[in-house]
């Protein structure tokens, strides 16, 4: 099994543009998504690149609320938006224990889902990976962090 890439350390990072949390309640991924989008817009991310980032943030926040925090409202999901000269980074942290999600999880098999051989769910991680330039996952005994990276400038976005 491939070990997930560690998230960057604070020493690697530049400016913190936003630092906030949302309660783990269904629907709050939109609050996280819109807050990150406002920050990203100020960095010049727009159009389809912005929409992709919003989807990735929403899905990562949903995973954190559901799988990390068990949708317990009193347990927040923490989000940080950071910028280096080249990248926008969004770090999404839950209070989950156990191994972090696998970065190299298999792509969903739509045909198997349509035949009822797999659950219809299971799209989140696939969508996240498809929407950003990099996704890194790290974890310790009480936290999981998913880091989303979008390259800034002309080459940015997928």
């Amino acid at each position, binding site marked *: 099994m491939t070990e997930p890439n560690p998230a960057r350390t604070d020493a690697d990072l530049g400016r913190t543009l936003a630092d906030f949390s949302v309660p783990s309640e*269904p*629907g*709050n*991924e*939109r*609050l996280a998504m*819109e807050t990150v989008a406002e920050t990203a817009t100020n960095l010049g991310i727009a159009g*389809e690149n912005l*929409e*992709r980032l919003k*989807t990735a943030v*929403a*899905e990562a926040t*949903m995973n954190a609320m559901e799988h990390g925090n068990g949708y317990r409202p009193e347990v927040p999901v923490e989000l940080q938006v950071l910028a280096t000269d080249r990248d926008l980074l969004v770090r999404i942290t839950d209070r989950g224990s156990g191994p972090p999600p696998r970065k190299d999880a298999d792509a*969903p098999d*739509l045909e198997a*889902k*349509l*035949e*009822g051989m797999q*659950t*219809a*769910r*299971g*799209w*989140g991680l*696939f*969508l996240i990976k*498809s929407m950003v330039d990099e996704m890194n996952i790290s974890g310790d005994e009480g936290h999981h962090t998913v880091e989303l990276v979008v390259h800034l400038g002309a080459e940015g976005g997928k």
Partner: protein
Amino acid sequence: MDVRHLSVEVRTEDGIAVLDLVGEINGFAEEAMNAAYAEAEAGDPKTILLNFEGVDYINSTGIALIVGLLAKARAAHRSLLACNLSEHYVEIFNITRLSDFMSVFPDEQTAVGEASEF
């Protein structure tokens, strides 16, 4: 932030059952989606069209709901179509391969016109 719960109107256009979706397609939408699909299916149409004009948010749980409808349609040998998706959600339908199994049209008129020729 308030969730825009999904509401669905079902109507018939040239023999095609059209589901007008308004709101968010997420975990809260399951009951409304399934009830509307059942209402549409009651008329035994050959084709069911999902009209996404009033939808501004679809998450992975919403994708799973659409997969569920598509599975039902295929089992009953019906065509399930989509129209009025935003550019972003057309991309999502492409990368998830949903668009391999349900034709996606830019607008309702085009969808109904093409479906009439099925």
